[in-house]
């Protein structure tokens, strides 16, 4: 066949690379600010936009979707063209993809700062942006699959398998976890409630880690590692086995975020066992990467790109061992809700994703700019500082986590909690938080060095926007399997079938876990005393969501003596049936709040306490790290949304009486006046229409229903009240 000449598009690659660096620095600096707020809570500056609960989603989303996202697109756009021996399918789609993605990031940062959030971790975007994400993601997939279809190579390489799995799975996850009913342009309610929402959310959350942070990066590893080392891949068979095992098993493991929660036991068990079964498939990737370096270890000593890759792959191996361990009940009972989880996440984010991204950039930017890296020495320094940064980040958090759970669980000989005041357990950790901030700071110093080094590389280089290439066109062959052709080899030349198989592999687990929770009623035993929120409480809850209180507070008491002694009854599935969205949280930097309103409970506080506390937590507890929320006291509650909110809730099956939306605001004001009057008796002047009143109403409702039922812990779970 005659050779065809064509050009690789390097311009899109360059754009994505610049965006990676830009957002990387921003996302990490916001992370540093968050770390510093644990040392100096004043650093929230007393204004809403920079408060912990609002900028934490900015940090997580910026790092995951902006830094790692753009990094993965950089790597994919470069490698895909070369692996397919074809230019990207459409320059226009490439442009839409690039600019659309940046638009999403800017919109995300702004909306989070303004408090527009769905309150679901790593899926906080509100519905208009969710739609935009879906559209742009499809554009990406269309562009990628289009390229694969017009390829000039017969088979698709393992890197592309991972890219395809990434595309289909993220599409499914994102759509399923974002089915929301809009209330206004910036506010919606997720259709799932409580336990179901928790399950869907963590099915998404866990698989965002799997299919946004893992599979695309394994794909990148499979291209850039052998390229940089100039060595063949260790084992093609291992690629096949670990690829299919990984994507099939991963999707089941979501419930490991909900161990010892109100999620039904059978679903928890699936989360445990599938996580454990993931060790080998995950390590398959690490093994295939590290063994590819056999015979090239002398190069690793020389080449910063390979150094970054080796640490990245090792960090991947570590966190994919640690993850399954944390999924077992024994470890989860102590590690969950502590900063262990945060340390674990950062081994992955800083080590695996961060280092792999920089390895790719250090390798690719000199190539498209036709020059050498400006300074190898600086890149080596970046490597060492970054590695130190990871260690200084993670070790104090692990240490802190151990301190934390020991303190949470310690009893005196008389049978009392040794540290009944939660704040003591936070104060104890502050030196560890400081050390963590230093670690993060070091890592950022490394990143800034890397950015500087790459800018100088770019400046000395000569950019090649259109890179000429040639390859023979693909001869048409029969789609049927040829004699002697292995089944998988056949599949590798049928990308559409390949994608469909991958889709099936990931759908099975999701369907088996999630569907029964909807169909089988006994999964969520109802509790008769649990009633919908009053309009005022509902508004208060939405403020709770808006302010991101869930980034520090959990609402899920686990069935341990150390928790029921501290908070009250452990949580039951039936309590959460009106919670759109659920707010269980994933870590406790402050105490669990799900029993906050129980008058005879361990945590009860009068209205005036909440008022003073929100106004200035440090005035009540000098050591508190909770941010000041004084705008809640100054701002009027937006009551224009009440009626619509009630109607949407009714649509979602919350049993408000028909026509309730019309009187909802009267009911709201009635309840608000009572709270306002009570504050008055304590010498506090606060009009009923202030936001704080709604927040207080919500906090005072927490846990009230289940405690008023007078059910003992055991009877509520075993004899569902119908």
């Amino acid at each position, binding site marked *: 066949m005659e050779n065809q000449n064509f050009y690789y598009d390097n311009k899109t690659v360059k754009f994505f690379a610049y965006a990676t660096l830009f957002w990387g620095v921003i996302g990490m600096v916001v992370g540093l600010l968050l770390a510093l707020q644990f040392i100096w809570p004043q650093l929230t500056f007393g204004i809403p936009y920079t408060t912990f609960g609002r900028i934490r989603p900015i940090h997580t989303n910026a790092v995951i979707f902006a830094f790692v996202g753009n990094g993965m697109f950089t790597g994919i756009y470069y490698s895909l063209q070369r692996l397919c021996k074809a230019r990207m399918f459409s320059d226009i789609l490439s442009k839409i993809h690039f600019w659309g993605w940046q638009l999403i990031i800017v919109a995300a940062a702004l909306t989070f700062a303004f408090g527009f959030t769905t309150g679901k971790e790593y899926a906080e975007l509100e519905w208009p942006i969710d739609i935009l994400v879906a559209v742009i993601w499809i554009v990406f997939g269309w562009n990628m699959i289009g390229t694969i279809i017009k390829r000039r190579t017969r088979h698709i390489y393992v890197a592309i398998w991972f890219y395809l799995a990434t595309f289909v799975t993220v599409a499914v996850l994102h759509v399923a976890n974002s089915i929301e009913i809009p209330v206004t342009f910036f506010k919606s309610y997720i259709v799932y409630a409580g336990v179901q929402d928790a399950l869907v959310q963590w099915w998404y959350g866990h698989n965002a880690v799997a299919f946004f942070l893992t599979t695309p990066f394994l794909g990148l590893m499979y291209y850039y590692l*052998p390229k940089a080392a100039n060595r063949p891949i*260790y084992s093609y*068979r291992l690629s096949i086995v670990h690829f299919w095992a990984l994507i099939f098993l991963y999707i089941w493991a979501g419930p490991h975020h909900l161990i010892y929660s109100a999620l039904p036991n*059978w679903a*928890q068990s699936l989360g445990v*066992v599938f996580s454990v079964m993931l060790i080998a498939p995950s390590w398959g990737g690490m093994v295939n990467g590290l063994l590819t370096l056999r015979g090239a270890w002398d190069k690793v000593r020389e080449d910063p790109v390979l150094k970054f890759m080796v640490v990245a792959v090792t960090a991947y191996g570590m966190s994919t061992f640690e993850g399954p361990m944390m999924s077992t009940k024994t470890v989860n009972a102590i590690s969950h809700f502590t900063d262990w989880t945060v340390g674990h996440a950062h081994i992955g984010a800083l080590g695996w994703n961060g280092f792999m991204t920089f390895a790719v950039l250090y390798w690719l930017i000199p190539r498209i700019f036709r020059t050498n890296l400006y300074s190898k020495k600086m890149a080596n320094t970046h490597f060492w500082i970054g590695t130190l940064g990871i260690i200084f980040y993670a070790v104090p958090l692990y240490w802190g986590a151990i301190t934390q759970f020991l303190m949470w669980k310690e009893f005196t000989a008389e049978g009392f909690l040794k540290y009944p005041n939660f704040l003591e357990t936070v104060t104890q950790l502050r030196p560890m938080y400081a050390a963590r901030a230093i670690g993060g700071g070091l890592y950022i110093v490394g990143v800034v060095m890397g950015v500087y080094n790459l800018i100088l590389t770019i400046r000395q280089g000569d950019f090649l926007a259109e890179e000429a290439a040639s390859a023979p066109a693909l001869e048409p062959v029969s789609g049927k399997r040829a004699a002697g052709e292995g089944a998988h080899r056949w599949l590798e030349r049928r990308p559409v079938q390949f994608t469909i198989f991958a889709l099936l592999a990931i759908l099975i687990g999701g369907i088996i876990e999630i569907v029964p929770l909807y169909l089988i009623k006994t999964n969520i035993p109802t509790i008769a005393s649990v009633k919908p929120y009053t309009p005022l409480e509902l508004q208060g809850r939405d403020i709770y969501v808006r302010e991101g209180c869930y980034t520090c507070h959990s609402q899920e008491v686990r069935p341990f003596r150390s928790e029921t002694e501290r908070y009250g009854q452990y949580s039951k599935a039936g309590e959460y049936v009106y919670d759109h969205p659920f707010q269980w949280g994933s870590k406790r930097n402050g105490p669990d709040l799900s029993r906050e309103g129980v008058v005879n409970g361990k945590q009860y506080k009068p209205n005036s306490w909440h008022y003073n506390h929100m106004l200035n937590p440090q005035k009540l*507890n000098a050591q508190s790290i909770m941010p000041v929320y004084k705008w809640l006291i100054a701002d009027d509650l937006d009551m224009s949304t009440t009626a619509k909110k009630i109607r949407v809730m009714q649509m979602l099956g919350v049993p408000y009486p028909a026509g309730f939306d019309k009187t909802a605001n009267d009911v709201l004001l009635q309840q608000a006046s009572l709270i306002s009057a009570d504050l008055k008796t304590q010498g506090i002047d606060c009009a009923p229409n202030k936001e704080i009143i709604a927040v207080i109403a919500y906090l005072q409702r927490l846990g009230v229903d289940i405690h008023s039922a007078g059910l003992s812990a055991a009877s509520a779970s075993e004899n569902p009240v119908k």
Partner: protein
Amino acid sequence: MEINDKNPVEKDELTGDKLLSGHDYDNIRELDNKLPKWWVWLFIITIVYAVVYLLVFDVFRIAPHQEAEYANEMAAVASLAPAPQAMVFDTLMVPLTDQPALDAGKAIFDKNCVVCHKTQGQGLVGPNLTDNYSIHGCRFIDAVNVIATGVPEKGMISWKTQLTKEQIIQVASYTMTLRGTNPPDPKAPQGDPCK
């Protein structure tokens, strides 16, 4: 090119491992190595673990689920757990005055009470403890009772599930020493004057 009799097997120079012919992607080659044995065993062991786990927990239910685990945990400490109702105090009790007891009382106060009564007892959400007024009575036993059983509707929680009898007496004794200390920024008096 697929491997067949006519295509001699290619080998990787450095390791001598067999290269797969026809597997060349932008100059990346692949070796025909088998799966590492230890890796296969690791995978098998985890699968066996998974099957056994599900059988034990969810099919035959030999091991306890979390609700049963909790019941066991609580049963194990049942003898230990304080019996709050049984906590009775002598109405004629007098405050402790020895220094170690007052120091212990202050430590308890600083840890648990300052969040409502402020560091020097001047009051904020809770009443001022330093003035000569009281809402629930001026006798020592009144203070002890308020601490032990609380005034939940006003926000004062019951401490008898979190403090021992001895600790309650210590902290109550300490609060008695606060009377008349005139700290800065006091809360206005509440309740009735004490004689």
